[in-house]
């Protein structure tokens, strides 16, 4: 029952024009850099991409933007990218801005089979327009709906052939949520270990959420804001 895929090219081939894909990462931290690069080469178009951010001009999801593969972006913050601004102002790119916690919860709901949930986040703001409102103990909430993806691209630190994954530090971020919400989840790892080497008490993503797993080799792991202590 191994889920090892032979190549990133093979794994992303099933992604079709018009698909919705959920992509892990926060800024450039913990992004599935190999699968994104393979998807840029694959060239599937009119994608709806769900991810907290949209990369930078020449890295991460920015590569898909540069290729004009993205029709719609669902994100909480997209401020790091000139191509994004250009395509948005041109009307080439549709954008749905979602509060970060609501975005995380909508993806989590998608993976968990929860169809919708009530949250106070966004009440009284443009985000609440057109959404159902309901009071709970005097607190007004809005109804937000689940997000699922035709595919999910995630990056973990270690994984095993059954698809069990562990993440490292803040590179975890949206990755476990995306993993559970994709119909086909492609997981890339820095190190693919033997079955039994991950402690069953400390697996972040149990293998049943993962359809393809690949070892990504050397990772670039770009840093967006390199801040060091003044000596």
């Amino acid at each position, binding site marked *: 029952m191994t889920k090892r895929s032979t190549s990133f090219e093979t794994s992303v081939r099933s992604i079709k024009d018009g698909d919705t894909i959920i992509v892990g990462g*926060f*800024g*450039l*931290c*913990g992004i599935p850099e190999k699968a994104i690069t393979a998807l840029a080469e694959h060239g599937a178009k009119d994608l709806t991409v769900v991810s*907290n951010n949209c990369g930078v001009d020449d890295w991460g999801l920015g590569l898909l933007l540069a290729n004009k593969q993205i029709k719609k972006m669902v*994100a*909480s*913050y*997209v*401020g790091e990218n000139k191509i994004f*601004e250009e395509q*948005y*102002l041109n009307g080439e790119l549709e954008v749905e*801005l979602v*509060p*970060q*916690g*609501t*975005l*995380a*919860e909508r*993806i*989590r709901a998608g993976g968990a089979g929860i169809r919708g949930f009530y*949250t*106070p*986040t*966004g*009440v*009284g*703001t*443009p*985000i609440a327009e057109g959404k159902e409102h309901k009071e709970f103990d005097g607190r007004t909430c809005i109804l937000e709906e689940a997000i699922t993806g035709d595919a999910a691209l995630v990056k973990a*630190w270690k994984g095993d052939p059954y698809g069990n994954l562990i*993440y*490292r*530090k*803040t*590179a*975890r*971020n*949206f*990755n*476990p*949520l995306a993993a559970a919400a994709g119909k086909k989840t492609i997981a890339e790892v820095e190190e693919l270990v033997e079955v039994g080497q991950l402690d069953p008490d400390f697996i*972040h993503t149990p293998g049943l959420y993962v359809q393809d797993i690949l070892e990504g080799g050397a990772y670039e*792991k*770009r*840093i*967006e*804001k*390199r*801040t*060091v*202590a003044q*000596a």
Partner: protein
Amino acid sequence: MSNSREKIINRAVQEIEDGMIVNLGIGMPTMIANHIPAGTDVFLHSENGLLGIGPYPDESELDPDLINAGKETVTVKNGGSFFDNAESFAMIRGGHIDLAILGGMEVSENGDLANWMIPEKMVKGMGGAMDIVQGARKVVIIMNHVNKHGASKVRKSCDLPLTGEQVVSRLITDMAVFDFTENGMILKEVLNGADIASVRENTEASFTVDEALMQKEDSK
């Protein structure tokens, strides 16, 4: 650091008490971390999935997998923990963060906050701000009292699209400290260089003055 920024940060850091879980917004609020007195045992929460932000790393500690919500490289404090974004906002929305200190563009007299978009400009997104203002037990906003044209940012009602309605607990500007209560907006303190009259002059919002502050100024 500019004089007004220094005033704001020095005042804002006094909000942080021993034992608190604190979320600091991106920009000026993040700078507060460096001013927390050494003996204060607080956990700083970063919404990208970290409880217990430590100081910036030295060169040897630099780790691309360890950043804060502003995407800066950081370290983790002893006793800290990592988690995913859904858990991180469960902490926020669930009321487990004692205090959030965020920047503001406009605050209204009923405690509305606008801090995420200016309609004519390219909208970058709200990030986690809308969740944080609804979820943190206490929301403190820090901002300059007036904009660069001298107009008051402390408004009767916000012109800019809101981040949240009636979510601000306390506002700290370079002139004053206000609280938002069931009895409306109350001027609690004036900062060095300002007095009640100058605050009134620079504030569009209606507010009452705290009695203790009134007496203090009267006795000058």
